[in-house]
């Protein structure tokens, strides 16, 4: 089961990001993961939040441009080489990682990475073979 990521367009202007986090704070939306990509002129923020429906309606109402994207949350042992092993598996299976960032969590010595990948069936079978756990919304306590 994949999870929902919210991406929001960011104009290159001081305070743009603060406006977004402020809106979410006021509505008690918890940001569980966040990553920013930027060019010289604009950027975009990608987020995993505890309630993506609530967050998206608040942001849309505010006039933001956003897109909802299915991404995968994968459990990674929180120790040296943990991430390297996961990426090695994906490389071997020829799965492209478009982007990746980490989720703020550590459960039983495991971290969690958010991935946007190219080839879903291949991705899932590669992880299945190695018994690498894909986290569901429920696992992460997301709505």
């Amino acid at each position, binding site marked *: 089961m994949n999870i929902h990521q919210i991406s929001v*367009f960011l104009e290159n*202007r001081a305070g*743009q990001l603060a406006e977004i986090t402020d809106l979410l704070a006021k509505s008690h939306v918890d940001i569980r993961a966040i990553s920013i990509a930027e060019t010289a*002129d*604009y950027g*975009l923020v990608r987020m995993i939040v505890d309630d993506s429906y609530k967050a998206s309606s608040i942001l849309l109402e505010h006039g*933001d*441009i956003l897109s909802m994207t299915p991404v995968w949350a994968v459990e990674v042992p929180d120790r040296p080489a943990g991430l390297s092993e996961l990426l090695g598996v994906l490389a071997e299976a020829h799965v492209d990682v478009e982007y990746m960032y980490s989720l703020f969590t550590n459960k039983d010595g495991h971290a969690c990475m958010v991935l946007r990948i190219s080839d879903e069936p291949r991705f899932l079978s590669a992880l299945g073979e190695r018994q690498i756990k894909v986290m569901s919304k429920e696992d992460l306590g997301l709505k």
Partner: protein
Amino acid sequence: MAYFQPEMETMPQEQLRKLQSERLVKQVRHVWDNVPYYREKMEAKGVTPDDIHGIEDLHKLPFLCKDDLREAYPHGLRGMPLSDCVRIHSTSGTTGKRVVAFYTQHDIDLWDDCCARALVAAGATKEDVCQIAYGFGLFTGGAGLNGGSHKVGCLTLPMSSGNTDRQLQFMTDLESTILCCTPSYAAYLAESIHERGIRDQIKLKAGIFGAEAWSEDMRRDIEDKLGIKAYDIYGLTETSGPGVAFECSEQTGMHINEDHFIAEIIDPDTGEVLPEGSKGELVFTAITKEAFPLLRYRTRDICILTRGKCSCGRTFVKMCKPMGRSDDMLIIRGVNVFPSQIETVLIQQGYSANYQIIVDRVNNSDTFEVMVEMNPEMFSDSLAKITKAEKELVNALKAMLGIAAKVKLVAPKSITRSEGKAVRIIDKRKI
């Protein structure tokens, strides 16, 4: 005082008016017989060639405007069979369809004469070396001055625009004495000469600079830096190109070549002809052109005509520098840009038509930025996709406009609106 065609350039007013009348009557007949598009317009207005006895009847004829050129594209306003046409030139239209103007050999001859008059008025003789740094190609600038320079007998350097190193090398090695280009490029060349400390190797004495707006300050700046006299020239592709009007030694307005063009000033809202000396929209009737004989073409340039004795001896009426436009056309780096063209591209590329154009002049060169609002359709979680779409937009704008624009993607609803209406153009240039 030197003239290229003194019998025309100094013709007494009354005689000139008579010549214009004769040519107009003949031209209206030519258009009626050969340009069905305009004939229909005349019929719709209930006018036939029999109603036109002279220049006093000019006001009876219907106007042509840029939209007509678009509608009639490409052949609808051509007045001669293709077998008699020898060349085209072209400029951008309002929404993508370009304006194509046709020329017979005779048309080119007369156009070259007009440019030769401008060169001679700027002091050119057959002893001169004339460096033409206007673009060559569909743009009329290069071809027009090139033809004029040949007529005068100057050694002609058809450099085309750009490549400053090469321009300066030829300017010094071949000792150019006359420079023809856009005023902003002249200013840029002057800067470059100053920076390289090669002013003492420059033999220029005069320059003919047109195709874009420039101020008296800019003129003085160019004149001081290059040690020359800088002359203005006016024209548009629709009426042949540069040389419709040119400045003389007095530098107080441009003489319109009235043996080839009848100029009128009209009220842009009502179309009413205004008395000479009024400020209004400039309208041209080409009375000698064969292949693209536009009658009462509305230039959208706002200006004033003044008739009076000029110290240079020419009797042709003078037009001031265009003071603005009665439409929203911008001239950026010498290229005509219509906001509607940008709108067309944005919609084609999937963006909203809410945009803003910001034009400025930095170091005598125009900057051109288009702010485009991001929309849900074009947005993606992938930066690569957004930048790819942005690049496609930049390329499509370049293809449509002929010049490069910097695109800036902004947040939705961030483009300033005043009283509910979007401000489409911010022109910060102080000209």
